[in-house]
């Protein structure tokens, strides 16, 4: 122990071998092992946060509790529409496997959905279809990693990608294309994760429906979302697909793994996706809203990326680097263009300058980025263009050099031999000793002692500001009566259950 509220660093999950990342045996040192790295815990930053169940505050990982909660929730949803000879596609996403770098809870939820459908309906033709982002093999990788192909049976579990065959769907906003194989069963189950994740795109308007325009959708639909609307309207594409007669004719219920920035807190399931959306929205405002507000107040530090995922999807305190670098109140719908989102990046000129003063800059506190471990498979040149970037080792440089989505990355970055050398250089030119590590650690955040102290000092005021000023505004902007949601029996039961 380093002091009452300054703790030893948290050991993150080990690197995952992937076609998109470096050979894991080349990662000889993790950032939490650097001298001077400590951790700051959510119990000290925001003691009002609900207690996580996986891992719990002692660091224990009991997967049985995930199954018990999922069984309980799934036994309470209506499955009467499913007959014993019906086919069902459980629709998942790669995202669920990346929470805190540990996909076991999400994999357990997927298995439990299958088992409870069988138990309650007698149906046997249950398939798993897992969507991806822009790493078109990733879902199959996770399916094998968690042996879901064995669990669901031969040929019943497989990845689906935006390049796969599509089918047109009539929606209120026009015809959009979804993935044929996502919807090739009589019924679908929507199995997702509730963390805010790409809030720089969906802005937490109908967050729970987003995969209908992403994981389950064709490439044209995803491009429509990211190019043909705007920084506060894109998620209408997802809602329009979800509300289409075609999808509604197949939809049964949703099941979500629910994290807070600290760890997994519960499983939720409901036939009414919008009711589930209300619960997770309020929960996310009360938890992610606080750590993300705190992040925008930090000054002058070095970011170390050290996680098995692409650059924007690296986690610190449950928040992805894309959100962190956006540096605005992403929940506030008066904010037009975050520091990072494709609706902002598209308006940068050839010299790397925003084409309008409306475009907010990348978090000005980030003085350097050090990449110790990251995957390719997501266009990320923007960050190396905007922030001085050091890549650790040729093995990591080669990942980005060969990645078809990051061919220009190395034109804007330098390569250091090892992590200590990279940090030594970063400390010199960034002129700060403050460090935050994106390594997916659960329970807290690995940081330098100086940044831990800054965060601990800021947190109480942030908590008060979010509770009293920001949440009422965020709710009002979305037409949500948050007091009514908070006082509803279902939310109270749900939140009390979270705290058990």
């Amino acid at each position, binding site marked *: 122990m380093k002091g009452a509220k300054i703790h030893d660093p948290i050991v993150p999950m080990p690197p995952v071998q992937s076609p998109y990342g470096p050979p894991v045996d080349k990662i000889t040192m993790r950032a939490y092992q650097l001298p001077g790295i400590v951790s700051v815990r959510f119990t000290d930053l925001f003691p009002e946060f609900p207690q996580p169940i996986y891992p719990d505050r002692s660091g224990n990982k009991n997967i049985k509790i995930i199954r018990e909660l999922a069984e309980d929730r799934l036994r309470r949803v209506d499955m009467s529409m499913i007959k014993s000879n019906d086919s069902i596609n459980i629709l998942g996403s790669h995202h669920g496997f990346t929470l805190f770098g540990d996909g076991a809870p999400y994999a357990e939820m997927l298995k439990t959905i299958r088992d409870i459908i069988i138990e309650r309906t007698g149906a046997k033709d249950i398939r798993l279809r897992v969507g991806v982002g822009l790493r078109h093999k990733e879902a199959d990788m996770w399916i094998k990693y968690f042996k879901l192909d064995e669990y669901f049976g031969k040929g019943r579990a497989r990845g689906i990608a935006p390049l796969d*065959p599509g089918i047109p769907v009539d929606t209120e906003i026009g015809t959009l294309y979804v993935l044929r194989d996502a919807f090739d069963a009589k019924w679908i189950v929507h199995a997702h994760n509730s963390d805010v994740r790409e809030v720089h795109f969906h802005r937490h308007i109908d967050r729970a429906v987003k995969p209908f325009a992403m994981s389950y959708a064709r490439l044209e639909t995803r491009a429509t979302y990211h190019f043909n609307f705007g920084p506060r309207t894109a998620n209408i594409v997802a809602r329009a697909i979800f509300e289409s007669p075609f999808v509604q004719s197949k939809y049964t219920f949703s099941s979500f793994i629910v994290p807070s920035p600290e760890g997994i807190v519960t499983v939720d399931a409901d036939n009414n996706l919008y009711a589930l959306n209300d619960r997770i929205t309020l929960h996310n405002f009360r938890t992610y809203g606080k750590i993300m507000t705190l992040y925008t107040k930090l000054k002058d530090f070095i970011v170390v990326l050290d996680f098995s995922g692409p650059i924007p999807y690296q986690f610190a305190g449950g928040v992805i680097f894309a959100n962190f670098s956006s540096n605005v109140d992403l929940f506030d719908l008066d904010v*037009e263009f975050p520091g990072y989102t494709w609706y902002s990046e598209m308006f940068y000129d050839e010299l790397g300058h925003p084409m309008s003063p409306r475009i907010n800059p990348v978090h000005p506190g980030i003085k350097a980025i050090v990449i110790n471990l990251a995957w390719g498979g997501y266009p990320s040149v923007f960050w190396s263009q905007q922030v001085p970037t050091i890549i650790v080792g040729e093995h990591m440089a080669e990942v980005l050099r060969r990645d078809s989505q990051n061919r220009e990355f190395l034109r804007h970055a330098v390569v250091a031999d090892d992590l200590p050398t990279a940090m030594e250089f970063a400390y010199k030119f960034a002129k700060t000793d403050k460090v935050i590590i994106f390594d997916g650690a659960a329970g807290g955040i690995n940081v330098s002692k100086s940044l831990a102290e800054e965060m601990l000092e800021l947190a109480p005021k942030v908590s008060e500001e979010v509770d009293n000023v920001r949440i009422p505004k965020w709710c009002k902007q979305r037409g949500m009566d948050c007091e009514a949601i908070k006082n509803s029996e279902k939310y109270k039961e749900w939140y009390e259950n979270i705290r058990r």
Partner: protein
Amino acid sequence: MVGIVNEIPRVDPNKCIGCTICGSVCPTAAISVVNRKAVVDYSRCTGCRACFERCPEDAITMEKLPKPRLIQYKIREDDPENLKKIDELCRRAGLHPEQIICFCTGTRAKEVAQAILDGVKTIEDLAALVGVRSGCKVECMEPIQRLYEAAGIKPERKPFMWNGKPMQGYQWYWNIVYTFRIPEKVKVKYEKFGYRFSDDERVITEIVEQEWEKIKEAKNINRSLSK
């Protein structure tokens, strides 16, 4: 923009079953299937990895090129009439000519507009010549379609060859859903949930128009953004 091709696919004929998925997803129609084996036309291949990533048999590996190949489509900057046409085409598509339309390669609207004006008729040829769709293969699809539509062209999907016969893949579907075109009643219906249709349309239009005005002033060209 200069596209850099660092690696190319190699097909293992012992693993390839001739399923045609690689040909169906290849953005440049560079893959044909001959005697149940995939064959790559490297003169068209941009190393995008689509074939590698969707091959169900893991029969394709990506091999690093000893020397990167560059893809560059030049804009005729010295021809004011040409620049005016590029600007007008982008304007009709609701895009700023300097706007990035491919985040993987940094390709801008003006480069795709130039290629379309030069007569590049298919999206597969556009991908091979300009370098779009050579990264994620996903996000640039809509601005490309909007530019073709603005040029009055509905491109045909270029078939790939299967034992010498043309076969249709599913590289893309013609599909444009655009905020400026959705019914007003739909916008009104959803604005209460937080969607800011009118605000977003206004701010994006203002960015484009503001920049258009700057260019107009600098080049003495008369133009304005139309929806």
